[in-house]
Every structure is written in structure tokens, then in C-alpha cells.
């Protein structure tokens, strides 16, 4: 097993300290930060994503893995910035107005970051205006919205309408999710994509920006 494989494995086990060490070690082996990111951290997160999707592992394991991933990223990020390596895309993410559920949304954030996206997390109870302001500020490729209540999912449509009237709708892809949301609802309100879980969300996000 080489060190990249070890990184992936340590990440899956959620061993944050070991990751920091292994990433440093890999760097001394003259591996590029990009290679370590793609074939170590992201590779590990991918496997975590698949296992989560198949219900083999659950929230705490994903959380631990994500923590380990962030520990690795802490070492890599400054170097990646130096070498001018760009994130694969930008996502503005939030739970819609009136809704305070964020456990699912946070998972989506981790999986997106674990896939190489830069995520601007607006938190919970995010109004359409806030989404618009964030889109203007960060110019993301994707707007991702979460809703867990049947009463709040209607606000997703409000955000899409606001994007439209602000002439921003064509500039972003919209991806939605959360327990009550369905593919049908996504079609109905004109979202580009519905994903049932955080791992699929990351895959779909990649597909939407045509990155592979």
C-alpha cells in the first residue's frame, strides 16, 4: 500500500491525526498536493460517499471521515493556493427560509467539499434575498438548497423565481434536496437536479458542471 492509499484508508477510518502525518509524509515523497488531494483525500471521501449511500455507514462515520479530510486539507490548502490549483467549482448552499434543520445540509457540504468543491454555506433560515446576494457575491456554479419541512420546501421555488427576476438563473445550476423533496417537485419548480442523499448530491454536482 502506498501512502496515498494509506491516506484514503485513514480518512475512511476517521483518523484525523494520522492523516495530517501521512499528508506531510506524502509531500516529502515529492508527491504534488493535487495528487494527494485527488488520489488520497477525495478518493477516500468517494468511498465514504458510496458506503453512506448504501447505508453501510452512517452519520457519525461520515462526520469522522470529514473531520479527517479537513485535517488533510488544512495541510494542503496553503500549498494548493500557492500552486494556483483551483477548486472544481463553487456552490452556494443553505437551508431555506423558516427551516432550521441543518444536519442533512451539513452532510451535503462535507461531501461537496470532499469532492473538491468550494462551498459557501449560508446556514439555515436563508431568505431568497440572501441567496441572491450570495450568488452575486460569490458567482457560484451551483445553488444548493435544503428543506426538511413540507411547509418550507415551497420557498425553494421562491428562490428560483428570484434568481430568474435577478437575471441570474441562467448563470447557475440549482440542486435541491431534503426528506420531503422529490424529483417531481424539482421538475415542477424548475430546479436542475434533485439528489436523494449527500453522496449523490456530490456526484450530481460534478455532473452538472460537466466535470469528470
Amino acid at each position, binding site marked *: 500500500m502506498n501512502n496515498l492509499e494509506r491516506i484514503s484508508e485513514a480518512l475512511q477510518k476517521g483518523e484525523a491525526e494520522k492523516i495530517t502525518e501521512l499528508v506531510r509524509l506524502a509531500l516529502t515523497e515529492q508527491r504534488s498536493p493535487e495528487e494527494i488531494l485527488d488520489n488520497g483525500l477525495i478518493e477516500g471521501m468517494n468511498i465514504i460517499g458510496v458506503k453512506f449511500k*448504501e*447505508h*453501510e455507514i*452512517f*452519520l*457519525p462515520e461520515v*462526520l469522522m471521515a470529514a473531520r479527517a479530510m479537513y485535517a488533510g486539507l488544512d495541510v494542503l490548502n496553503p500549498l494548493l493556493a500557492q500552486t494556483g490549483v483551483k477548486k472544481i467549482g463553487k456552490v452556494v448552499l443553505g437551508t431555506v427560509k423558516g427551516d432550521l434543520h441543518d444536519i442533512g445540509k451539513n452532510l451535503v457540504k462535507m461531501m461537496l467539499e470532499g469532492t473538491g468543491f468550494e462551498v459557501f454555506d449560508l446556514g439555515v433560515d436563508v431568505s431568497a434575498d440572501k441567496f441572491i446576494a450570495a450568488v452575486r457575491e460569490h458567482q457560484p456554479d451551483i445553488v444548493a438548497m435544503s428543506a426538511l419541512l*413540507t*411547509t418550507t420546501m415551497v420557498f425553494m421555488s421562491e428562490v428560483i423565481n428570484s434568481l430568474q427576476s435577478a437575471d441570474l438563473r441562467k448563470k447557475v445550476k440549482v440542486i435541491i434536496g431534503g426528506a420531503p423533496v*422529490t424529483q417531481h417537485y424539482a421538475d415542477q419548480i424548475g430546479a436542475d437536479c434533485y439528489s436523494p442523499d449527500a453522496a449523490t448530491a456530490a456526484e450530481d454536482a460534478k455532473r452538472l458542471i460537466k466535470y469528470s
Partner: protein
Amino acid sequence: MVRVTFLPNNENIEIANGDSLWETILKAGIRPNSICGGKGICGRCKVLLKEGITEPTVQETELLSPEEIKKGIRLACQTRLYNNCTVEILPENRTGLQDIFPLNRVDNAKDFKSSFWLDANVEKIFLTVDKPSLLDQRSDWGRIKEALVRKKEKNLNYLQTPLPLLKKLPVLLREADFIVTVVICNGKITALEKGDTADKVFGMAFDLGTTTVAGYLIDLKTGKEVSALSKTNSQISYGDNIISRIDFTQNKENGLAILQKEIINTINELINETIQNTGISRDNIYEITIAANTCIHHLFLGIIPIYLASSPFLAAFNRGLSLKAKEIPALYLSPETNIYMLPTISAFIGSDVLAGILFNGMNDREEITLLIDLGTNGEVILSKNGELWACSTAAGPAFEGIGISCGMRAVEGAIDRVKLSKNTINRHVIGNGNPKGICGSGIIDLVSDMLRIGLIDKSGRLMTKKECPSGISEQIKNRLDIKSGENIFLLVKENETEEGKEIYLSQKDIREIQVAKAAIASGIKILLREAALETKDIGELFLAGSFGNFINIENAIKIDLLPNISLKRISLVGNAAGKGAELALCSRRIREIGEGIYKDVKYVELSTHPNFSKEFMETISF
């Protein structure tokens, strides 16, 4: 015009072209299942179209299997009718518990005597009124009052008389030959009855729940419970959770009026059944008390509930409220019957919880006590030396068997108990017939035993056959299987079940259970922390709600649903809300206490609580 025929009764209904089947069904008085309240999300309102089969809609193709669609199964809420049709609503797609159910009765008089003193708000006094003569020209009212003073030996000047009563007075008094019984309620004479009826003084206490409504008839002279019945809240067809109902009032024309009518209908049915069973007269019910969750409380009163559910979550009012039956549309009680609504605590903590606090005397216990009501919306109350904290934690309906592959409510055909060891598996089925599915208490047993023998690990992962720990017999090991690519544990083989479909627990089901139990357990932890307490400090734990009565507590502790304290310190209190409403009916003192404490209960909002997610992640494993 379109004609719809309902099987098996061959009832016909004519509707306008393009009307929704869902509304037609409701009109016909049939109660379809629904979680989403007719939005095409939950897929529970299945009907079988025998004639006039419609084209499946997008929602139907999403939520129904191809076989179902081929058979003619459709979603009532998504079907609009343009042609005559014949519809069958299969029993499993009607809401269960249609009928009125008797509840276990307790002898209040015995149970409650120590904790309160009978002090009802209604009193009846039998009077032999002096007959008038030319020598005694006191007014009719004057002589009644005089007789009252004589009997009660105290000044009753404060007693007022409503005009409707005065109108009846002269004739009634003479018809009764001056032998009457007066009814005093809320400090006013509310009725005058002929003859001696002083021993017929009744009241009813209600607990209005999202799913079930319970009604108790109490003899107010003795405090004894005469009858106890429960019935499914007929609002259930508009969504099985409060959010869907609130949605309905917001998005449907007349939604509020419809839901108000449904809850009143349910109450009326309970009143009628009670009267029929006991033979007492409607006119002898002088007062009712109502405990309810805040949403149903608002709906009963016809108050729009939408602000309960959106941030910052506010009720229209919290205090206790007295009103007359005539102020509630079409409530089948005599118009002057007093209604006392217990105070609510917050948008998510209703008067049902307050009633539970009162019933368990949590307000003046020195010991640290915890009250847990396990339901779709779990409520947790903590008391420490009279100080009270409360939170509401939305666990979802997993423990009611909803959202679980082979789950069902605790009705006939449900596996409600499971005992699994390394070599054997035993189960109990409600009604003792062939099993149809598994309900919450059975799921808790199964998960707990699977954990114990190692078929599920601490993280909640279900073992595959290969990973099965040693020492497990082949018989049990072979139950670890794969179905549609997912690991499952086979509980009942298909040839042993009622419907010929195997009953199993899947990996995903276990995840659903983990989420639900973590929501409750986190609520408990956070509340304890708010009060700077730990699990070991809990002196007594009251487990309320019907679900609490059925579960194996030890197993519930093993899966970390309930805090790990000695079984001796856990009491099952059943429908504490209903019992609390009874107390309030029997005792004005109890009402005063309720009015005194509802404002002081510290409501802990979990949705913005900084530690919720952390606790949730920590309690989600076993």
C-alpha cells in the same frame, strides 16, 4: 357529472367532472391513509380502481410500483375523475382505529385522592322552595335564593342569573311544583332542573391528540371515571402530522373550517358513544375540560395555526380559557355547558403536556423527575424542585412503524414483541393471527436483541452472513440476507405471513430508527444539561403516551432511546394528558396550579440550540 361507486358497499356519489377522488372519498365519509394531506408526496392514499381506470400521473409513476399501476392502483389525491368509475379502498389503506375503542379505566377516586381534593367547578343543590301565597309574595328568584341560603348556610349574593334561565323560571318552577335542583358552574347558576337531580352531575375530560382523541366521563360528585373511550382524530386524513395539517389550513380554501369541523365531529362521536354506553343524559354533562397539543387546541377553537410552525413559532395565546359550548360550532352539548381549555406552554408544548405535569405532580416534587411522551413529536419535561424545563423533539413516525419497510401501527396483525437469541427467535402478534408487519415495540425488541447477540454493531451496521459472529446458530445466521441489494434480517418467512410477503428489517430501517431515537435522546440530554443535571440524578421517570405502555423498557434503554436508569425509577403513566384533564375537571385547585405554572415552564428551543447536532451525532450510535 361523474358517478363514483364505492366497493364493497356499492355506495354511489355524483360529483362534477374533474373533481378529485380524494375529496370525493372524504365526502363519502371514508378515511384514507395520508401523511402528506393530499399533496402527492407520501403515497399512502392508495385506492384500487376497478372501472374507469385513469392514466397514471407523474407522482403515481414515482410512488407506485409498475405492478400496482397495472393492477389499477392509484393515489386518490392525484386522481381527477372524468369518467364514471368504481373504487375500492382496501382496509389497509384506510386509517386504522376507525372505531371507538374503550380505554383501560382507572379508578380515579382511588388513584388521585391523595394528590388532590375534589373541588369541581360544578355543583348541584337540591332545593325545596317555599310555595308562594298571598302572604308570601317574594319573587320566584327571590324564594329560590332564600332556599339556597337556607341550604348552604352562606350568602350567595354573588350568584348571577343568565337571562335564558330567567325566561324559563316561572313556568319551570310551577311545573316542578317548587321542587328543583340548581346547577352552579363558574360561580353562576347555569341551569335549573325539575325535581331532585343532585346526584346526576357529570363532566367530560378530553385529550385531543394529533392521532388519537380520548374522552373520559367523570362523576363530579365522586371524582370517579365512569367511561373512557378513544377514537382516531378524523383530521388524520388531512395529514398524519401537525405540519401537514397546518399546511392544509394555509393552502386550502376553508381549510381551517374543515379541520375544526373534523375535530368537533370526533369529539361529538365520543360524546354520543359515551352517552349511549352509560345511559346518562347529555344535559347532565355540565362541563368539559380539554387538553391538547397547541395545534389541535388552535384548530378546535378555529384559530389559524400557521404561526405555530414558522419561526419564531408563536401561539395565539397560552393562558387557560373558559367558554360555552354554544361558542363552538355544532358541538353536541347543551349550549351553556362550560368548556375549560387548559393553558398551553408554547407553540410545540401544548396543554396536553401541562396536563401531564399536573397529573404527575411534577410542579411540587422535590425529587428530580423527567416526563417523556414518546410520539411523532416527542416531548420531554424536566422538573427540579418545582422548576420546570420542556422541549419538543421531532422524532418522526418511525416508532409508529411508518417509513420502515415492513412497519405498521400497533394494530391487529402487528408483531409487537420479539425475543431473539443465538439459537431461537420468538414473536408475538397482536390478535394472535398471522403477522402482517412489525410495530414500534417489536422493532425495539428486535434491534435490542440483534445488538446484544452482535448482528448489529454499535454503529448500527447490520452484519452480512459472512460477518456473522461465531456462536450464532445456522437458523439465525441464515436470516441475514440481501434484498434488492440491501442487507436485511429476515424476521418472518413469506409462507408464514398473512399477506404472503416476508417481514424483515433492512439496514435502512435501522438507520431510520437511529435517527428517531437520537432525536429523542438528544432532547433528553440537552434538557438535563440546561438544568445542570446528569442522567444519574433522575429520581423518577414518567413514561407517557400509549406507546410507552407497550414497549419493553429494558430494550428501549439498551438501544439508548431512554436514559439508563434503574427500572424501579421508571413509571408508566399511560395517557397522562387525559388524566391531567380529568384532574382539572375535578379540581379548581388543579386549574389554579396550571394557570400558575404554564408561564414558568422554561421552553428550550432545540432547532437553534448550539449543541443539538453534536448531541444528535453522539446519540445516533447504539
